[in-house]
């Protein structure tokens, strides 16, 4: 049995406490933001050709018309005025409504910062659970010795699900402005906030449906996690002719079916819902790819760490090699979906779709392009070599860049819709990250310590322990171990 070391426990708790303090501070200072701060932000933006600090300014010719510049600075809706007024829920262009808009963005920032890290943490934990279910359904031979690592990481699912439920309830209760369609009067034709486009979608995006659906997703995922964890441990001592094993197989088949449906709707509700005027058909796949790469990287990290502590007796370099192959392959898969979505929209250039990328390309150029380097070029060049893939420290370096890159990806999915040009990577973002890193370390290692690290009852265990990829030399083994 693995013993959760006191040092690491203190370290993860310190991260959590530090995160909580930072989050509390940013919520406090966020609540102190006034309409005056918003006006300052607008002024600052138009004075320095708005957002000079964020790299390129908008290429469209600037008129001296102040309100037009302000409108650009506010973020989500760019380009031609005609598009803006029809597409935007914030149609009016006078200064006060703009200041209010920017004020909402400033007030959103602590929420968004928390939401990005929360969604990333929840999503990658969920995808670890899904990858685990895939291993069971595909009756995979190699990964049996690391099934308990994956199981342990899913220990993070319940706490982050509860936090997600809290954020969703808070949003529905109008404690934040994350989801613009929740604004007062959006569905009311007599209101000046009335938005006919969003109203046309109100059969799907309405607060009740959103709340009910969200809670259902979370309950379904946690139910499977609770069931499979209990029965997986039961499998060790069951000795019932693989009856428990087959039960777990069936449960995993059902979960994968449920997961594909809930994951698709979840990405519509939780991410695409931040931009209610915009839609994309392959979006759910794209979100899935981001979270899957991150999930595999986190599995590799915990496997490498626990192996270095001699807590995983059956794991050898070939298992690391396979995880790295998955990280490599799904990095390419992510790039494929990212580019497929971008290129189709860029090529056809339909204004109602293009606004999504215009906002990201003008105000988020560095992270937007930087993440392609981090999520594609870097892992592809680093992990293409078969020998490198079996070196734990190499996989670690690649993994750090991949995780950072996919955090930025989620950041870019969320931030332009909620805070627009008012983004910055500062205390709110860093403390939310620290909090969720500490949380996943704590929950994973404490649940890993609660079960036998080797799933003894799995019929594929022996195969997994003897797993060797023919092409690589293992460190610390003599050639007799190869066949």
């Amino acid at each position: 049995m693995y013993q959760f070391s006191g040092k690491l426990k203190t370290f993860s708790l310190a991260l959590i406490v530090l995160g909580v303090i930072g989050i509390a501070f940013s919520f406090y200072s966020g609540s102190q933001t006034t309409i005056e701060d918003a006006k300052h932000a607008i002024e600052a933006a138009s004075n320095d050709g708005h957002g000079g600090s964020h790299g390129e300014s908008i290429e469209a010719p600037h008129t001296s018309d102040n309100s037009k510049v302000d409108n650009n600075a506010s973020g989500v809706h760019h380009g031609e005025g005609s598009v803006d007024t029809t597409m935007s829920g914030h149609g009016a262009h006078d200064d006060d409504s703009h200041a209010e808009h920017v004020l909402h963005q400033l007030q959103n920032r602590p929420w968004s910062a928390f939401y990005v890290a929360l969604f990333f943490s929840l999503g990658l934990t969920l995808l670890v659970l899904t990858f685990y279910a895939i291993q069971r359904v595909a009756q995979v031979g190699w990964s049996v010795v690391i099934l308990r690592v994956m199981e342990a990481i899913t220990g993070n699912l319940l706490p982050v699900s509860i936090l997600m439920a809290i954020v969703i309830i808070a949003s529905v209760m109008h404690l934040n402005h994350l989801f613009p369609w929740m604004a007062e009067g959006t569905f009311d034709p007599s209101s000046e906030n009335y938005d006919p486009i969003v109203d046309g979608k109100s059969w799907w995006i309405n607060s009740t449906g959103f709340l009910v659906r969200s809670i259902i997703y979370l309950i379904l995922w946690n139910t499977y996690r609770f069931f499979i964890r209990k029965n997986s441990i039961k499998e060790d001592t069951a000795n019932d002719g693989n009856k428990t094993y087959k039960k777990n197989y069936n449960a995993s088949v059902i979960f994968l079916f449920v997961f594909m449906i809930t994951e698709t709707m979840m990405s519509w509700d939780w991410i695409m819902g931040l931009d209610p005027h915009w839609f994309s058909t392959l979006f759910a796949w794209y979100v899935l790819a981001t979270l899957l790469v991150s999930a595999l990287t986190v599995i590799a990290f915990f496997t490498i760490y626990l192996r270095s502590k001699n807590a995983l007796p059956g794991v050898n370099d070939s298992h690391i090699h396979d995880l790295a192959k998955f990280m490599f392959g799904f990095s390419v898969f992510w790039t494929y979906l990212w580019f497929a979505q971008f290129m189709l929209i860029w090529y056809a250039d339909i204004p109602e779709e293009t606004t999504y990328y215009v906002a990201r390309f003008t105000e988020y150029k560095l992270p937007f392009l930087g993440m392609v380097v981090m999520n594609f070029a870097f892992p592809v060049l680093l992990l293409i070599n078969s020998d490198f893939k079996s070196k734990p420290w190499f996989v670690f370096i690649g993994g750090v860049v991949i995780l950072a890159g996919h955090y930025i990806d989620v950041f870019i999915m969320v931030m332009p819709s909620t805070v627009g040009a008012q983004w910055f990577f500062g205390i709110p973002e860093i403390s939310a990250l620290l909090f969720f890193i500490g949380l996943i370390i704590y929950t994973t290692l404490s649940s890993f310590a609660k079960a036998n690290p080797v799933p003894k009852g799995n019929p594929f265990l022996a195969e997994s322990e003897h797993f060797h990829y023919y092409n690589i030399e293992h460190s610390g083994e003599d050639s007799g171990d190869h066949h």
Partner: protein
Amino acid sequence: MEANKVIHAFYTDDEVLVDAVKAVKAEHHHIEEVFCPFPVHGLDKAMGLAPTRLAITAFFYGITGLGVAIWLTNYIMIQDWPQDIGGKPSFSWFENMPAFVPIMFELTVFFAAHLMVITFYMRSRIWPFKEAENPDPRTTDDHFLMEIPVHNNEEALTSLLAKTGAVEINVVDKH
């Protein structure tokens, strides 16, 4: 001439063959060639063959293909005749880059795949009308053959091979 003689040892099982190769290597005899009807896992390691560098060549062929694609799209679409086709920005290569990515991808794969295959053919000396070098037709069906050159040690080699489970041992003249 003794040096022109080789021993052909036949085996009927791949496991036995790999063990025989290890035994022969342990006695420091040079194995000229092993003929198999199908790939035998671990045979190259047992024989001590150097790893292939085919994947490395493929990587560079791929980079070449990418370079060709970038040059091609830039020359044709941007330099030679920068037309306005449906409003696509042809002022610089980067501005129109997304439209070129499918070509860049395909040419990278095309170059990497085809040039690697041709490299394989050349290095393995395979081509149409090439005369087959098979010493015994049974090695394409159900027999494995180990070929060892003889240097005045015919007796020792034969007894060693007999111990390794060879089903047939022939000393033949190498043409």
